[in-house]
């Protein structure tokens, strides 16, 4: 009798089969931060494999670069990483300027740095805020939007646009800062420093947040190098690599020498080195460093011209140039080739989000679905830039 029960049980066990489920996360899903699809294999709640599918937002940005004049391409650079448009403008302008060998007025460099750093703050606010959203905290996101709103208002005052600025031009900036703008930036810095503490208290050290992000999605330093990560992704793994110091452009070499900023690194404080918490931590700390850079610029800015004397229709000397800058998401590289004409022969963009996204496929297997969301959030991708 006992034997027959055992047989029945075994048969029953054999009869129950489990099967991995293929789940499409996206193209429209709150956690993918845009129009991206992640094809996920899941065994119940456990993700056994994930493959990001890109291209839903492809707009031929690079090809357009080969078909419009040098100056006309600038507004297209706004559109790939729309959260850090100032930095995109800067990267492209630097590449063209390098080819042309233009001397940029010092005041223009100052204003460029202020704008780029303010935009970095705005971008990190979104990154950290939406990361909170991914983890399930709604309110910090809106607090961060409040400060970002001020940042956008500042940009609106200086260039009239709130998201796609095209303010940093080849040769300098579009126009000088309006009267009182610099003192308002200073006020912003003062207020932001206070509010920053609020975000740290509310989200960064929140017990649930730490529990959800520490030891999740651990990128070892070796792995970070293997995947060619950059920006907060690589610094989160403890690798001291920041283009502002290591391949300086603009005034950053001078600012670094003056000791105005430091480079925060992930230390594995709450879990393993290179986990999601470390990456979020690096972003949060970087906001304060950006404030310090802005303050340094505000202290040393002097009146003067803001744009070099360049012709309306640029003819860039034949040659090629690559400039990589520290975008909020990592290394944003522009590679431009000119044959001396009005149009680029090649306009290649190396986007940080695209490169950083590759690591997701490696991190996801074996995590829970909620962790998968946390991992995607911690890469801080902007789909406009992965697809370009």
């Amino acid at each position, binding site marked *: 009798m006992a034997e027959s029960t055992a047989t029945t049980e075994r048969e029953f066990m054999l009869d129950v089969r489990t099967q991995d*489920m293929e*789940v499409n996360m996206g193209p429209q*899903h*709150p*956690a993918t931060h845009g129009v991206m699809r992640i094809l996920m294999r899941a065994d*119940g*709640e456990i993700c056994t494999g994930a493959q990001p599918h890109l291209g839903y937002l492809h707009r031929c940005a690079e090809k357009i670069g080969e078909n419009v004049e040098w100056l006309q391409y600038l507004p297209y650079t706004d559109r790939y990483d729309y959260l850090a448009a100032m930095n995109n403008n800067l990267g492209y302008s630097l590449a063209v300027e390098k080819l042309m060998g233009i001397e940029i007025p010092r005041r223009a460099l100052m204003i460029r740095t202020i704008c780029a750093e303010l935009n970095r703050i705005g971008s990190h606010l979104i990154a950290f805020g939406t990361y*909170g*959203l*991914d*983890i*399930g*905290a*709604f*309110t910090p996101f*809106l*607090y961060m939007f*409040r400060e970002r709103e001020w940042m956008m208002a500042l940009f609106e005052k200086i260039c009239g646009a709130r998201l796609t600025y095209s303010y940093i031009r080849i040769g300098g900036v579009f126009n000088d800062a309006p009267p009182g703008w610099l003192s308002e930036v200073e006020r912003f810095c003062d207020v932001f420093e206070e509010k920053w503490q609020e975000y740290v208290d*509310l*989200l960064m050290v*929140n017990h*649930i*947040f730490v*529990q*959800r992000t520490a030891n999740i999605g651990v990128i070892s330093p070796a792995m970070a190098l293997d995947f060619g990560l950059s920006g907060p992704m690589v610094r989160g793994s403890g690798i001291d690599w920041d283009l502002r110091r290591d391949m300086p452009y603009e005034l950053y070499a001078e600012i670094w020498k003056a000791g105005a900023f430091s480079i925060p690194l992930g230390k594995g404080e709450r879990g393993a080195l290179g986990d999601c918490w470390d990456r979020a931590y690096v972003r949060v700390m970087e906001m304060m460093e950006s404030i310090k850079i802005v303050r340094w610029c505000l202290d040393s800015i002097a009146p003067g011209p803001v744009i070099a004397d360049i012709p309306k229709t640029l003819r860039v000397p034949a040659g090629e140039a690559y400039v990589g800058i520290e975008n909020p998401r990592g290394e944003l590289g522009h590679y431009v080739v000119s044959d001396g004409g009005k149009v680029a022969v090649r306009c290649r963009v190396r986007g940080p989000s695209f490169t950083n996204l590759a690591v997701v496929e490696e991190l996801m297997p074996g995590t*829970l*679905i*909620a*962790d998968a*969301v946390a991992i995607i959030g911690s890469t801080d991708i902007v789909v406009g830039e992965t697809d370009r």
Partner: protein
Amino acid sequence: MFTEVLSAAPQSGTNAINDFLAGVKPEFVPAWAVPLTAVGIAVGITIALVSVIAMFSTWLERKVSGHIQCRYGPMRAGWHGWLQPLADGVKLLLKEDLVPVGADRVMYVVAPAIVLASVLAALAAYPLAPGFFFADLDLGIFFILAMTSTTTIGVVMAGWSSNSKWSLYGAMREAAQVVAYEIPLGISLLVPIMVAGSFNLLEVSRGQAGMFGMDWYIWPWVNPFMLPCFVLFFIAILAETKRAPFDLPEAESELVAGFMTEYSGIRWSFFFMEEYAAMYLYSVVGAFFFFGGFESPLTWGAAKVFGDGHVLYHCAAGLTLILKGFAGVFLMMWLRWTLPRVRIDQVMTLGYKYLTPLALACVLGGSLWEVFVAPILPWRNG
């Protein structure tokens, strides 16, 4: 079910509607029509109650979240947007009612009805005032817990029949979560039940009738294990009502909208009505078993001034309960807009490894206190 409840009513208490109808019944109306009409009125009042609670709660939620997030929330429809729920309701009624291709149609349609019916049934045991209730059940709290846990069946049905993987995930999470948290929820209520010596909500309330709320069960001088019990109870009801930080069944950033991903229009709103009504109901249960139920300085004063049969006394008691209920609802909203969401394994760990043993320890400690300490306390034997 209501007929059973009402037929049981004469033994366990009085039924205001039934008595009233019996009193004004004209000669030509047969006697059996009285309980039926009473049932009809009671059902009507319950449905209206759920709708009003849900509507007010959605408004409250939007205002609370708005003010927490440095916004105003709805401001256009009426004074401070108080007509907003009405506008939302009209919009939801007019929306297209979709059934996804490949969905199990019958289950898909029935699921929201089951979800709403469970909380409607549970509200039958909710006394509006000491003298106005549909059913004064001796096992009142037992009935409420049994009925509200029926919600899970509807949620699982909704998730399963939607033919969507996200819905399925939501449903499975709900099932796992509710099973894990029913246990500490039930156990944590045992201590106040022991102190009160009754499952009957009205009697539990009557047991806390001291002046200035000094006899509320939450106070440590009544039973020091009551406070930890309340904390456990509150965590458990957050999980039971799928509120943040335990809103995993509908985790927006993970599962799109969980088990109600595919629902639209008025069916979708049924889930919301259930959620808010359940929040209120559990808060009221918490108020009954820990915070004095109907009893408050206001009720005490009304009883002194008007006497405890007066209609104003009943109004004061009902108002007290409503305020206490919405205080709980507010607390749940406050938490929702403050905390991040926990992960499914953390939910399970918390439920099984911490809450359940702690609840059992509280019951042990609380019952030892009741047996050995409470008899020698002068204020417990007054």
